[in-house]
Structures are given as structure tokens and as C-alpha cells.
């Protein structure tokens, strides 16, 4: 069943991109509505996961452009974490936890296309080739976009660590 196989992946992508749990639920529902409408157009020679994630990416970026979530705050990082806190392991130190919070907040500063590329590569752990297929971009463009996004996040991390917290 599609819901069992893909809902978690799509929901997490939406949550990481939008930063809001409630927004991510609504977006996931919209993406699945689109998915069921477009199933008849699916080309069986294509990778289904990549096809679905491309659809999800398009919907997330289109909605972002219409609503401009960057004006809204992302959920507090801790808000949804306790349920899966055990997954991070005992070595998860306080400093790392603080970095994670700062990077989570910093994601909203990235342009939507860059944010999506970084999420797919670094959070969803896709290969560069998979990210290129999902985004429909050449491999070189994807690599430089991800590098740019990471550098931007690194600088945000530095600023916030130096006491520039808003």
C-alpha cells in the first residue's frame, strides 16, 4: 500500500522543508492527493520513489513560493523530537544537540531549491545522482548547490554560536 510505503518519507521531507508539524501534515495530504490523481500518468520505466519525491518537491516549492513560510518560525527543534530521541544514541552530546537546533533554525534561511537539495542529500541521505534525478538538474549543478547550502548553514552556525541568536 502506497501510504504504508511512502507516507513517512514524504511527511519527513515536508516537515524538514517546511519546519512545521501541522503544515507538514497538510502538505503530505496534498501530495498524496496529487499522487493518486497522477498515478495513471506514471511511466513504469521510471524509478517510482524518485518520481514521487519529484512531485513532492515541486509541490513543496510551489507552496513555499505562494505562502513564503520563511516569514513563519519553524517549530522548536525539541517539540517533535522526544518520540524518537533514543535513535540518536547515547553519544549525542549537548554541544551537538545545540548545533542541531541552530542548523534546524538556519534551514529557513536557505533558498527553497538549495534547502531541498541539502535536505535530500544530508538529511534524507540520498546519493548525488538520486538528488539530481529528483531535482531534474545536472549532477554538477546539484553538487555545487549542496556545497553552497552547507557553507551558508556553516556560516549561520558560526554567527549563532558567536551570540548572534535572534
Amino acid at each position, binding site marked *: *500500500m502506497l*501510504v504504508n510505503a511512502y*507516507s*513517512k518519507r514524504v*511527511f*519527513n521531507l515536508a*516537515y*524538514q522543508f517546511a519546519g512545521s*508539524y501541522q503544515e507538514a*501534515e497538510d502538505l*503530505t*495530504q496534498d501530495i*498524496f*492527493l496529487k499522487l*493518486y*490523481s497522477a498515478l495513471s500518468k506514471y511511466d513504469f520505466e521510471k524509478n517510482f520513489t524518485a518520481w514521487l519525491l519529484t512531485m513532492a518537491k515541486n509541490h513543496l516549492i510551489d507552496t513555499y513560493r505562494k505562502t513564503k513560510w520563511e516569514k513563519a518560525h519553524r517549530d522548536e527543534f525539541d517539540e*517533535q*523530537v522526544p*518520540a*524518537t*530521541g533514543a*535513535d*540518536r544514541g547515547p553519544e*549525542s552530546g549537548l554541544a*551537538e544537540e545545540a*548545533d*542541531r537546533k*541552530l*542548523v*534546524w533554525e538556519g534551514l529557513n534561511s536557505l533558498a527553497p531549491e538549495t534547502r531541498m537539495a*541539502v535536505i535530500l542529500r*544530508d*538529511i534524507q*541521505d540520498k546519493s548525488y545522482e538520486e538528488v539530481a534525478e529528483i531535482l531534474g538538474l545536472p549532477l554538477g549543478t546539484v*553538487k*555545487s548547490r*549542496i*556545497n553552497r547550502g*552547507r*557553507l551558508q*548553514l*556553516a*556560516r549561520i*552556525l*558560526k554567527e549563532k554560536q558567536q551570540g548572534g541568536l535572534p
Partner: protein
Amino acid sequence: MTCERIEELLSAYLEGGLSPAEKELVQGHLAVCPDCASLLALLEKTEKALAGFPELEVSPGLRARLAAIPERKKKFSFSFDFVLKPSLQPVFAAGAVFMTLLSFYLFNPDKRNIDRAIDQKIHSGYSQVEKLYAKAGSFTDRLGDTAENVFVSVKNWKIFGGNEDNPDKI
């Protein structure tokens, strides 16, 4: 090499995606540029932080809503599915032609004359049908008479015991 050029290579450096020559170049620059060395350390932290984001579970409420989508779509599309059947295309074509003619008739500025012409056509058609009916009536009468004459003539043949010379004497 400039810091900007080195920055472009930092991700690939961390992921081990550089050629030995490029790697050497980056290492040489990092050894003399504290800014780039600091940026590399931050980049490592950033990547580690991103990789450490937990994966959330889908709430039962959302799962139920997602599972209900196909049923909702079925109900919604029920009333429209039949419209898309190719077998109904001639019906739609005929409907379109009828509507075109109807709109031509209804919105024609010369509608009164068209009405009169249609009236005349209907009346002349009706009178033609009446004439035809009357002709058909007389034809059946004549056919009946002819059949009776043939029957009488056949009966009067000698082989049937009649008198051909005097048909009245049987």
C-alpha cells in the same frame, strides 16, 4: 588559490571526492588559511547536525486521512467517469450539433420567417401524407376487386367444373 575556489571544493574534500592533486592543494591552503580551516570545521559540524535530525513517525490521524484518499477520490470521480467513455462520443457529438442548430434557431433575428417556413413545411408534409393515405386506400380497394375477379375466373375453368363459355352457369 583563492579562498572562494577552496570553498567550492570543501564538501568534496570532506566526502573524499577530490583527486590527489586537488586534495593536496586544499590541504596546503588550509594549513595557511585559518578562516578556511575554521569554515571546514563548521562544515563538518553542519553535516553532522543535518545527519542527526531524527526521522519522525506519521501520526495515526494523518495515516488514516491518507488511507481514505482513494475512497474519497472514487466517490468524487463516480459521477464523472461515465462522461469519459469513448462509446458516448457520438451522443455528445449529436448533442453538440443539436445545440448548435437550436441556438441558431433561437437567436436568429429572422426567427418569425423561420417559424412560418417550418409551419408551411409541416402542413405540406401533412397534406402529402393524407394524399398518400387516400391513394393507398383506393389502391387496396382495387386490389381487392382484382383478386375477386381472378378468383371467379379460376373457378369457372373447366377443370374445376365451371363453364368457361357461360360463367354464370356453374
